[in-house]
Each structure stands twice: as structure tokens, then as C-alpha cells.
């Protein structure tokens, strides 16, 4: 027996919303989805009129839907924003080069200017080369750290005011869980913020308009709107620690669909004791990027890669930062520990 849409009651429902369980027709779903993102943007005050906003585009479903919705809302509600696409090429064969083709297609479909920055030109290393040196564990650290800086550098080259990324509710919930499991209290406090703090120069604020949109709803939206996106998992991702948090979250969602938002709510409402040591924001003494230590993480990682000591950035080695800055050679024992594990 066909079910009627619970919003307009006239048309037949074609999908069930994962978020609330209501049955909706196509148009009402589109409208509800876009409207929720609009509410998120307006209530958090994410953008101001006349700003140039770079959309972090990877060719995947989140960034494709984000680009589409931002374009639609910009016109519908007259945000007055100047939108453009920014993409990062990590140099993963068979994954990134395919997804970049999708981004180029998006550029034509949405008529937005596109800029691509690559790890090769910024750092001199592609992810394939990094994985060859580091191995199959801990390589997500390199990719993530480098990408954040690459996005910022690309945005600075384009002179944008804000960056927005396609992080969805599932991503934020996974991050909360992962930070609890790893005991990272500093990140736990910051990770549910919808946009990063914007004090200090050289730091372009980043925001997540899709923060309250479920991943499944994003897929539903892209499917019904027939949006073109690239849907393969990164070939290096199966060994990441985040996979555990993701599996747990998926199971939680199957028991209680609202769990994802519940986890985000917990993350937003928890408070940290005063007196717990927190990192202070400063700048890297080598490249000038924001950092809480003397050397920023990507400089440390790069140093490790260039010297053939890939474990330099994994774990805490503050004492070595001084040595690295001063260009002193490391002792034999230290070098041995930092090399990749041979199998």
C-alpha cells in the first residue's frame, strides 16, 4: 500500500528519512534537506555578505553535494557569496586521479572556478611515495596533516575569506568517539565546533555546513538529484584507527538512528575541567604556519621523510625538535628507532 508523504500528504512517499524516520516524497525531501543546511548556516552565522568562499572539493559525495547545495542556497536566499572550488591532489594512483576527473566535471556542471594544489608541488612527496617509506599503518596521519596545510595554502593563493568542507554528521560523531578512545582531550573540546577560530593571520577559518546532515541522507540526495560523484574508498584506509570508530558508529545507528546526533550533542555539551593542560596556538618557526609546538606537524613529518626516518612525526618527540631546528645530526640509537619497521 503506497504511503503518502508526511509533509505534503499529496504525493506518494518514495523514501524514508534516516534521520527522523518520516516518509517523504522527492521534492519535500529536497526541500527539507536544503532547508536544514540553510538553518545551520544562518543560525551559526557562518558567512557574511560579499565573502569569497572556497569549497573543498574532492569529487566524493560530500563535497559534490556541498557544492551543489551551496550554489542552490546562494541563489535562493541571496547570500551574496563568491563561490569557487578548491581541490587537493595527494598523488594516490587509481584513487585521486579518478576523483579529480569528477571534480573537473563538477566545475563545468556548476560553473564554478577550480584550483588544484598537489602534494608534489607543495612538499615534493606524493602519497604513494610516502606509503612506500612509511608502510601501511600511520600513513593517514601524513595525508591528513598535509592536506590541511595544502587546503590553507591553496586558499591563501586564491585569497579567499573562508573555506567550507563537506564534513557530515557521521564524520563529526566518529571524530568525537575517536578522540575519546585516544584520550585527546584538547581535540575533544574543539572537534564539535562548526567553524574553526579565526584569530591570528595566516589562518583562514574553516566551517562545516553539512555538520548535521547524515551521510545516508547525503547519498539519498545525490542519488535522487542524479549528481555525479566518485564513490571509491581510499585504498590505504582499511588500516586506519578511525575504522574502528566508524564500525561502532554504524552499529549504533542501526540500533538507534538518532545516535549520530546524540553523539554530537554529547560532544557539544561535555565540559573539560579547568586546569587541564591545553595546547597554546603559536606559529611554526620554520614555515610560519599555525602550530602549538616549535615546529608544525607537517614540517616534522617532512623532515622525517626527507631524512629517511618516517617515524619522526608519529608519537611525541619534543626534545628532538630543538635538534632538528638546529640541524644537528641525531644519535645512532635515535635514528634506529625512527626508521620504519622492516618486515
Amino acid at each position, binding site marked *: 500500500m503506497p504511503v503518502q508523504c508526511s509533509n505534503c500528504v499529496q504525493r506518494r512517499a518514495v523514501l524514508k528519512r534516516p534521520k527522523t524516520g518520516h516518509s517523504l516524497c522527492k521534492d519535500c525531501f529536497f526541500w527539507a534537506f536544503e532547508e536544514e543546511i540553510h538553518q545551520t548556516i544562518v543560525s551559526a552565522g557562518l558567512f557574511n555578505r560579499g565573502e569569497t568562499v572556497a569549497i573543498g572539493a574532492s569529487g566524493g559525495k560530500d563535497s559534490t553535494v556541498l557544492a551543489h547545495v551551496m550554489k542552490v542556497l546562494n541563489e535562493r536566499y541571496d547570500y551574496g557569496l563568491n563561490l569557487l572550488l578548491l581541490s587537493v591532489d595527494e598523488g594516490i594512483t587509481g584513487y585521486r586521479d579518478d576523483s579529480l576527473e569528477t571534480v573537473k566535471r563538477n566545475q563545468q556542471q556548476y560553473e564554478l572556478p577550480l584550483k588544484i594544489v598537489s602534494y608534489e608541488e607543495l612538499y615534493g612527496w606524493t602519497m604513494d611515495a610516502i606509503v612506500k617509506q612509511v608502510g601501511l599503518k600511520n600513513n593517514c596521519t601524513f595525508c591528513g596533516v598535509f592536506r590541511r596545510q595544502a587546503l590553507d595554502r591553496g586558499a591563501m593563493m586564491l585569497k579567499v575569506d573562508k573555506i567550507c568542507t563537506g564534513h557530515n554528521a557521521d564524520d563529526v560523531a566518529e571524530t*568525537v568517539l575517536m578522540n575519546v578512545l*585516544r*584520550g585527546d582531550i584538547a581535540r575533544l573540546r574543539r572537534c564539535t565546533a562548526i567553524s574553526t577560530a579565526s584569530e591570528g593571520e595566516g589562518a583562514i577559518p574553516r566551517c562545516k555546513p553539512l555538520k548535521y546532515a547524515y551521510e545516508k541522507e547525503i547519498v539519498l540526495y545525490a542519488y535522487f538529484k542524479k549528481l555525479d560523484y566518485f564513490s571509491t574508498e581510499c585504498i590505504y584506509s582499511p588500516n586506519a*584507527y578511525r575504522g*574502528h570508530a566508524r564500525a561502532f558508529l554504524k552499529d549504533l545507528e542501526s540500533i538507534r538512528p538518532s545516535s549520530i546526533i546524540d*553523539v554530537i550533542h*554529547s560532544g557539544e555539551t*561535555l565540559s573539560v575541567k579547568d586546569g587541564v593542560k591545553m595546547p597554546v596556538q603559536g606559529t611554526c618557526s620554520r614555515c610560519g604556519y599555525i602550530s602549538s609546538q616549535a615546529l608544525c606537524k607537517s614540517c616534522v613529518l617532512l623532515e622525517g621523510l626527507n631524512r629517511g626516518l618516517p617515524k619522526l612525526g608519529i608519537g*611525541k618527540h619534543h626534545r628532538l625538535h630543538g635538534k632538528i631546528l638546529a640541524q644537528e645530526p641525531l644519535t645512532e640509537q635515535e635514528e634506529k628507532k*625512527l626508521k620504519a619497521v622492516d618486515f
Partner: protein
Amino acid sequence: MCQVEEDYNGLECKQEKIPVPTLNRKCMKCKEGTAVLIIRVSDAFCRSCFKEYFIHKFRAMLGKNRVIFPQEKVLLAVSGGAASCSMLAQVQEGLSRDAPKKLRFMPGIIYIDDGGACGRSSEERQRSVDQLKSIFTETGFPYFIVPLEQVFSLPTSVLVPGTSDPDSSNPSYKQAVDQYIKEKQKLTEEEAASAVAQLRIEESVCSPEHKLALERLFSSLNTLTAKEDMLQILRQHLILHIARENGYSKVMMGDSCSRLAVKLLSNIALGRGAALASDTGFSDPRYGDVVIVRPMRDYSSKEIAAYSRMFHVPSVFISGLDTKTHDKASIQRLTESFVTNLQADFPSTVSTIYRTSEKLHTVMPSQGQTTEPASKCLLCLCALDTNVDKASAFHATLVSEQLSQIKLQDTSHDARCCAEGQGCGTGGCCSSNRSPEHQDLKTLLCYSCRLTIKDMGAVDALPPYIITEAEKRQKRSRMRMEISEYLLEDED
């Protein structure tokens, strides 16, 4: 390797540090005795050192936190499981020592028989109760065996947080201890005898109506997650009531480190982020006059199991709501299997989660004599966390609900109904009134208790004390709205 705070001391890799276990390892503490077990990753202990370590940890936990004052009445919540029975054994051990550092409080035991909610038969329940009774009488402390059905005869004062007695001069811990030592020298034998005579043993029998009511309550909850949550809430209320009635100012719960790590994660999944520190911290002051402490929170379940086995601590296994259910039956069960499996691959998982919980705290609303109990959740008595600003997850859920449904015109509907002249009485207007009741209850609850009630079919299956208190609070808030412009102070 996945811990952020992990420091590589001298850059030693983990692989090279763990010695291969052999049969002739020496205890790492006394270096003489042969090791009989390994705790944490690679610490080997001999039998006597392990016993000392175990006992010392308990006393250190109490001593470090300094919340139990001498001569205080402390209620031990025993569920029959290994952890709470170990706690009971430790308390016995601590009180019986002749050393000057004897533990100095007066314990009582409480056991809540929740067989009615778990679907156990009366024979099974009686059997467990008898087994437990024999353990309790051995200890010589007064004990209370309370069936969960007694929830239906609780007063509404349970839901109101009490204030700590303003009469007590509230000395600092050190002063209290010194005072006690001076007074102790005047203790006579007669006093000791009269203390024994005061041994109150209470065992309540449940009436059949209450049994039916409890079954109805639990069958109206649709998911196992909601059932477990409700069971936890009712149990806490019952313990609180018994503690208040018999003058106990502290309650000791036997939650171990592993159990608390699972609780922390499942509470995050349930939306209880605001109250994480109270739910899993050492002391839980949300009830005001009765403080819940968790002295076993430093012990991993492995240590407790090893101790129980080696030193023959009696315990009774009693099946609960989620015994023998599959992994995905409820959020709590899922979290338990997740953490246990992760712990197998990454042995520092539980201790990392435990340390994270130590860095959190609960934001308490300003305490004062004029604090309206309405600012606390009706069921779990934590501060309401639903007064968040518009850019938040909670607000996003409200927006989604609105956008996915046709707008309900409540006021016009009611007006139409009454205009039809069907003789609607006051307050019992029409069938549409049942959903507003559901709605009204929600405004009195915190985020996660809302989710529990959402899973409930018939809200009137709740015990009468909850319903009465809810109505009272709703009336008060309606009153408040009427006169809000004339109130001078902000009664927060």
C-alpha cells in the same frame, strides 16, 4: 601507538620492552616470590604482593578523595557480581584491621532485586536472595533486600535533590579525623553492644499489583536500550530513598574501571555528554544530601576476577536484562562488546578512556536555597542540557522534526473539538490530549531521558511518584509563565 599522549620514553619501541613470559618470573615488587599473575601489560605479582596491592588501592582511593568522614553511615550497593562483592570484602577487611589506619565508617548493605524487570521467576529470585543473605549475614552489617517493585510506593521527594544538612558544622576532613580519634578513646563496650542491637535487617515483600505494574512498565518500553536506561534510573531512585530513610549519607557503588569505560562510551552514544563526569567520576553529588562514590573505579575487571578467585570472595551471578543477548541488542551491550574487542588489540584502551573521564567535569547550576528543582531533569536529576543556543545538535533535531512533518494546528483543533459540545471535562478534553502529555513530559527531561521516554508506548505506565511530580512541575511552570513579568529576581 594510537594514544595522543603517549610518550616514547627514550624512544623505546613497545616490541622490545615486553619480556617473554616464563614460568619462573619473580614478582616485580618483592623480587623474591614467584609470580602468579600478570596485571596490566607486563607487571608480575606474587600472591601476597598482589593482595597488598589490591587492598592498598582501595584505601588509597578513599584516602585520596577524602569524602568519607569518620562515623559516617555508608550504604554499599551490592548487586551480587564480582566487583561489588569484592568491594564488600574490602570494606570488611578495612574495618577489621587492628592497625591505627582502620577504616572508620559504619556500613550497611543494599541489594535491589530486579528480577521482576528481567523476567526471572519467583523461585529463581528467592534462590539468589537466599544465597546473598548468607553472604550478608557473614559480614555482620545491617542489610536491606529490596525488590524493584517497591518503586511503585516511593514518595515524590525522591525526585527532589536534598540539600546537605546545614546543622552539621562541616569540619574539614583532617579536623574530623582528629576529633574522632579523641572521642574513640572514650568508647565503652556497652556502646559496641548497642550498635549490634541496632542491626536492622529489612526484607520487603512485593504485592501482586506492583508486580503487574512493573511488568507493564517494562513491556511498554520498546527497545532494550530504553529498558536498561529505565532500570538504571529506577534502581538509583530506590537506593536513594532507602539511604535517605535510614540516615545514610553516602552510597558506594561497585563499578570497576572496565565497566566505567563502557559506561562512558555508551553515555556519549545516549546523549549524556553533559553529565559524563557525574556518571563516571569518583563522586556524584547530584542528589545533594546523599553522595554516590565509586571506590572500585581504579580496578580493571581482570584484577577483580583474579582477586576473587585467589582469595575466595563469595559472589552470586544473577542474570540481568542483557544477559545472553546478541551484540546489537542494545547500545550498552554493543559498547561493551566494542570496548572489550578493542582492548584485545590495543591494551591501553580502557585506561585511556578512564583517564579521559577524569579530565571532565559537570557544570552544576548555581546552588542556592531558591534553586527550582525544575532546572533538573525529572528522571536522572542532572542539570537540563536542552537550553542550548540555536546553532547546536539539539536545535538541528527540532528543525528536522518540524520540516519532515505537516504543521500540526493544535489550537484550532482543540477549539473545534470543544465547540462541538461533546461535554469535554476539564483536563480530559479529547483523545488528542494524550500526545500533549507526552510532549509536556519532554520539557521536564534532559536530552537522553527524552530519548528513553520517546521509546515508551504508554507514558502512564510510569510509577505514580514520577507522574505526580511531573504534573506538579508543569503546574508550577505554568504559574511562573503567568506571573513572569512581575517577578523581580531571576530564580535560576
